[in-house]
C-alpha cells in the first residue's frame, strides 16, 4: 500500500526556517512508521535526519509527533496511519535538525531527581535486601520508563515553562520514592514541592496518553502531590 509522509524539516546549515516535505512510499500494512521513514532516507532523501536504534520500542530514540500525538515511530504501524502521516519533532526542546531535538534539557530535569537508590545503611553481605512482592509491586509501573521524552514533550506546561521538571523526571522520582529500600524520599519530595515541581501539573493527561510504555504518568504525578501534601509515602 502507499503511504504519504508529510515531514517537518529543519537544517541549520540550510537556513533559519523550518519547511515541509512530502514523500510517498510503498509499504506493507504491518510495517512500522520507522520502516517508512527508512524507505525515505535510504531511497529518496538521504539528508533526512532522525534518531533510532532498537526499532521495537525499548531504546526510546525515536519519539516524534505523529499525526498530532507523541509516539515512537517504531511502535506505530503503517496501517494505523494510512493514507497519510504528518510527522514533526517532539515539542518543547530545541530542534537541531529535522526530527532530532536537543535532549540535554530533558536529561538535566531527570538528573535533578537524584535518580539512584539512596540508602546509607550497609547492605547485608552476600545477600539481597529483602522486599516483599507487594512492596516491589508498588513502584513497578514507573520502572518501565525508557526516557524517550514522549510524555514531557506532550505536556503544555512544559512547552510554556522550561523550568518545569516535566512528567518523565517525576516518573523517575516516583520509582524511588515508593521503593521500600530507598531513603531519599524526603529530599526528592522537597525538590518536587518547589515551584518547578509537581504542582505545575494541571492533569491534562497528555503524558499518560503519550507514554509508549503504558505508564500511568498522571497518576504517578498525583501520587507524589499527595505525598507532599500529607507527608506520607
Amino acid at each position: 500500500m502507499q503511504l504519504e509522509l508529510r515531514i517537518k524539516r529543519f537544517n541549520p546549515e540550510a537556513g533559519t526556517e523550518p519547511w515541509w516535505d512530502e514523500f510517498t512510499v510503498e509499504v506493507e500494512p504491518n510495517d512500522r512508521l520507522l520502516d517508512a521513514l527508512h524507505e525515505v532516507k535510504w531511497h529518496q532523501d538521504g539528508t533526512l535526519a532522525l534518531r533510532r536504534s532498537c526499532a521495537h520500542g525499548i531504546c526510546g530514540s525515536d519519539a516524534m509527533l505523529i499525526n498530532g500525538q507523541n509516539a515512537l515511530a517504531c511502535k506505530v504501524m503503517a496501517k494505523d496511519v494510512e493514507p497519510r502521516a504528518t510527522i514533526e519533532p517532539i515539542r518543547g526542546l530545541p530542534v537541531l535538525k529535522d526530527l532530532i531535538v536537543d535532549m540535554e534539557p530533558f536529561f538535566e530535569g531527570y538528573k535533578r531527581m537524584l535518580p539512584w537508590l539512596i540508602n546509607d545503611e550497609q547492605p547485608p553481605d552476600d545477600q539481597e535486601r529483602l522486599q516483599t512482592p507487594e512492596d516491589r509491586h508498588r513502584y513497578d509501573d514507573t520502572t518501565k520508563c525508557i526516557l524517550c521524552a514522549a510524555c514531557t514533550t506532550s505536556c503544555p506546561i512544559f512547552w510554556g515553562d522550561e523550568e518545569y521538571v516535566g512528567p518523565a523526571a517525576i516518573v523517575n522520582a516516583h520509582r524511588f520514592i515508593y521503593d521500600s529500600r530507598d531513603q531519599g524520599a524526603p529530599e526528592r519530595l522537597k525538590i518536587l514541592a518547589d515551584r518547578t515541581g509537581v504542582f505545575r501539573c494541571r492533569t491534562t493527561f497528555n503524558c499518560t496518553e503519550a507514554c509508549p510504555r503504558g505508564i500511568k504518568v498522571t497518576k504517578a504525578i498525583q501520587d507524589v502531590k499527595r505525598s507532599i501534601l500529607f507527608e506520607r509515602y
Partner: protein
Amino acid sequence: MIVGAGGAGLRAAIEAAGEVNTAVISKLYPTRSHTGAAQGGMCAALANVEEDSPEWHVFDTVKGGDYLVDQPAAEIMCREAIDAVYELEHWGLPFDRTPDGKLDQRRFGGHTRNHGEAPVRRAVYAADRTGHMILQTLYQQCIKRDVRFFNEFYVLDLIMQDGACAGVVAYELATGEIHVFKAKAVLFATGGFGRIFKISSNAHALTGDGPAVCLRRGVPLEDMEFFQFHPTGIYKMGILISEAVRGEGGILLNGEGERFMERYAPTVKDLAPRDLISRAIYQEIKEGRGVEGKDYIHLQVHHLPKEVIEEKLPDVTEFARIYLGVEPTRELVPIQPTAHYAMGGIPTDVDGQVVVGPDEAPVPGLYAAGECACVSVHGANRLGTNSLLDIVVFGRRGGRHMAEYAAGAEQRELPDHPERDTAELLRRFLEGTGGDNAADIRAELQEQMSDLAGIVRTEEGLRKLQDILNGLHERYERVVVQDKGKVFNTELVETVELRFLLDISDTLVAAALARDESRGGHWRDDHPLRDDEHWLRHSLAYREPDGSVRLEFKDVKLGEYVPMERKY
C-alpha cells in the same frame, strides 16, 4: 576511555570512575544501548528457590557452548555471578521477589540441575525487562558518580603507538567534527553485529564498530564463525520473543500442531539451548512442516494462566499484539529464528585485556568487554541469560584492570595526524563522484549472509559468499552520500557502519569456511559432526593490508569437564 554505554561499558565506568579520570563515549545516548532490550533474566546459582550450585552453572555453560568454552573463564563468571547479582540489587535493581522477599528465580534454556538432570530455576529477573532494569540501574550509578559522557560521538579509529593503545579518533554527530582523544587505556564495549543478517533481533546501531576498528589496527577477531540464532523472533521482523516465555511454560508447535522439540531434545524439550532449537525449526520448515508451508512455526502460550502471561511476560505479549496483531492469550504466535548474538569478538583474557595471537600476548592499554569481546565464556553457543552476566562480571573486571593499569602508565605519544585516515575516509563519501547507494549494498549483504552463512552453511555456499562479498566491497568504494552537511549527518554514519559490517562479514565467512565441522552455532551441512580431534581450537581472523583474511588458531582452555556428546 570506555567506548560504548551499554551494560559492559557502564559497569566498567562505575569501576574506573573515582580511581582514574574516566569518560564514556557512545554513538548513542545513554540508555539507548541494546542491553535494554534483553528480556528474560540473568543466571546465578543463588539457590533461592531450589538447590543449585555454581559448579552446575559452569557445567551447563561449557556443555551449552559445545565445549569450546575456556573453562577457567566460565568458572570465574559463574562464581562471581552471585556477587554481581547482589551488587545490582544493592544498587536498587527492581528484581522480582519470592513471597519471603528474596530474589525470585525462573528456568531458562540449557540451565539444569546436577549436570543435565532437569531444568533448574537459576535466572533472577525483573518481569521480562531484566536488561532494561540493568541498563537503567547502571546508568543511575554512573550519574551518582558523576561519570563524564560524550554522547553521540562515534569512534572510528583506534590510535596505536609502539604496540600499545594511545587513544581513539571520534566523529561528533552534532557538529561533524573529528576529535582525537588521548587515553592511557581504552575499553571497547560496543556490543554485537547482528545487522550483518537480514532477520535480526539486534538494534540498527549494532554494526560491530569496536571489533571492526580493532581489526583494521591489527587485532584479530576470535571465533567469528559462531553466531547465535535465537529460535523465537517475530515472523519477518526478527524482534525477540524472550526464552522466558518457554521458561514459564510456553511451547513450540510446527505446522501440523506437533510439539516437535520432544523429538529433538526428549529431556528438556522446548528448553533446549538455542542452537539446537533453531536448527530443529530450520529442519521442520525444510521438511515441509512450517505453518501453511511457509518459513515460520508457532509459539503457544495460551494454555498458561492469564496472570502469568500478563504479569511475567507483559512486554513480549505486547510485541505480539502490536507487531503481529495476534492476541497471545487466545492465538498462536508466528515465529522464526532470528540472528541474535555473536559468540566471537575481540579476544581478551579474564581481566578484559585484549590478547593477540595463539600465545595470547596482551596489548598494553587495550581492553574489551561484553558482546564485542570473546573471553571466551560462551564457546560455540551462548546460554540464555549468560550475556547479561558476562557484561556485569567482565565489565567490572575490565574496568578494574584498566584503572589499575592507567594509574601506573604513561600516556603514549600520539603519532602525527592520528585523525588522517578517518578524515580521508569521510572526505571520500562526501566528495566522491561514484554512484552507489550504501542502503542497497547493505540490503544485499544482509540477504546473502542470511542465505549462505546463516543457520546452515556449506563449503560451496561460503565460497560463493566470498565472491559476493568481494563484489560488495568493490561497490562500496563507489558509495557517495547525498547529505553533504556537518550537523547530524546520519547518512554518513550509516555509510561508515556499512564498512564495518562488510569487514566483519569477511572474517565470519573465512572462519566458517575453515572450520569443517559442526559445533554449537556453526553448522556445516557438509560436515555435520563435531570433530574434537582437530577443532577444540579457537579461530583468530586477521585482516591483511590487501583486505584478505588470514587465520590462526589457539587451543581451547579445558578444565574439569571433558568433551562429551551433547544431548538434551
